[in-house]
């Protein structure tokens, strides 16, 4: 997956399409768009950062899951098995991207799997198909003729938290450092 942030207009269509396609419960998200504002008038801008599961090449969630509910599919997507998951939340604790959540009713852990059910029948993930500006590009990185391969070859790209060593598969063009650094405060106590 390549996300060209030069084209992203922060319309949240991807989040809505994801909610519709996957029936994502209220209060939780499989994909969302972080939005920041920087500078002061007249030198001001907004940055958007669409976030979702990175479907890492070396995912920590697969390593730590005690019941083997997470696995890497043949096409490289990391999937979760709802029948095995017991919601011990270990994967949520270990994931550096916080893309996992416990379904409030089903009590199992879910996350974005790039619409595996669609990809398997040759369709694009719902967010990619819905994106009005074509900022999101999905395809096979091993095929040199695919759109993602061409973009990865020609454009300077960046991933989130490369230091975690999970080899994430969402590549951003024009990633804004400020959008990554600023975070919503957590209220644990």
């Amino acid at each position, binding site marked *: 997956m390549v996300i060209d942030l030069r084209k992203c207009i922060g319309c949240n269509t991807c989040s809505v399409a994801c909610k519709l396609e996957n029936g994502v419960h209220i209060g939780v998200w499989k994909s969302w768009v972080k939005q920041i504002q920087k500078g002061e008038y007249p030198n001001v801008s907004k940055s958007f950062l669409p976030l979702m599961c990175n479907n890492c090449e070396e995912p920590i969630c697969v390593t730590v899951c005690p019941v083997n509910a997470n696995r890497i599919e043949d096409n490289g997507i990391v999937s979760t098995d709802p029948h095995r998951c017991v919601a011990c939340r270990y994967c949520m604790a270990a994931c*550096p991207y916080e893309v996992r959540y416990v379904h409030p009713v089903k009590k199992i852990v879910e996350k974005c799997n790039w619409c595996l059910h669609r990809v398997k029948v040759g369709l694009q993930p719902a967010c990619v198909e819905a994106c009005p500006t074509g900022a999101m590009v999905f395809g096979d990185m091993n095929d040199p003729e695919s759109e993602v391969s061409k973009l990865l070859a020609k454009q300077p790209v960046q991933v989130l938290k490369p230091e975690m060593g999970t080899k994430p598969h969402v590549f951003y063009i024009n990633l804004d450092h400020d959008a990554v650094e600023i975070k919503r*405060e*957590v209220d644990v106590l």
Partner: protein
Amino acid sequence: MTELVYDIHHQITFRWLIALYFYFTGMSAGSFVISTLAYGFGLKKFKPAGKVGVVMAILLLFIAPIMLLLQVGWPVRSVWNHFTYLNFHSPMSYGAFLLMMYPLNSIIYAYFMFKGDMKKTKMFGMIGIPLAITVHGYTGFILAFGKARALWNTALMPILFLVSAIVSGIALMILVMMVKDKIFSKEKKINKEIVYTLASMLGWLIVFDLVLVFCDISTLAISHAEAKETAHLIIAGQMSPLFLGIENLFGKFIPMIIVLTPKFRSIRNIAIASVLVVVGILFMRFVVVYGGQALPII
């Protein structure tokens, strides 16, 4: 000026149930280790602590897994799936086996101890020591494998957990021995010798614990960006009253001074020190579990 306009809320992963689970398994492992000093290693001095230790170890280990079952979304399925869909890369998978084997072994050990079969008691005591160490060490591993959180992701975590486990185990044992001797024994008198021996052991283990905590936090404070933020949070931020004040000052430093200074040593003061330690370690578990998640990671 940079401002966050929109981001979603993330769920908090581990809560107080997990902190309590760590607390109870810790005290169980700690009291088991003390119990084997007499019946496994033959240190006669610790004989009065042997039976108390094993009973405490078993009781605490009955409470601990209940916390886990309350925490997971599917309690019954979780017990079944942990054995049928084993993942050898996950510390939690090993935990499932340890949480079965350790209480079983402790019960057998206790059975032979109360029956008076010293040879078999020694054997099961020796089997029990690595089990007790791993049953608590693995909980440290669980956190250490949570690599997204700077506070947890350190190789010191299992050792830190083990030492604090033994510290809290001894402190609780001192209290239980005092109550037992005072109320249930024939003489209604506290066995001073064992209490003093345990207290000096407690003191030196607290010294070791403080050294480990210092190593851990000072390394965090000069490490990568998120580690620095975490160190700031627990030393100078929101968590510092809990970490510095309750956990380290009242829970470790003051009891250490009390039990290691001959002038302050008396049955009453040792009891106070033990209560402080037992409460302090409880806060330590909470600081570790909540402190690890107190900073946003994405």
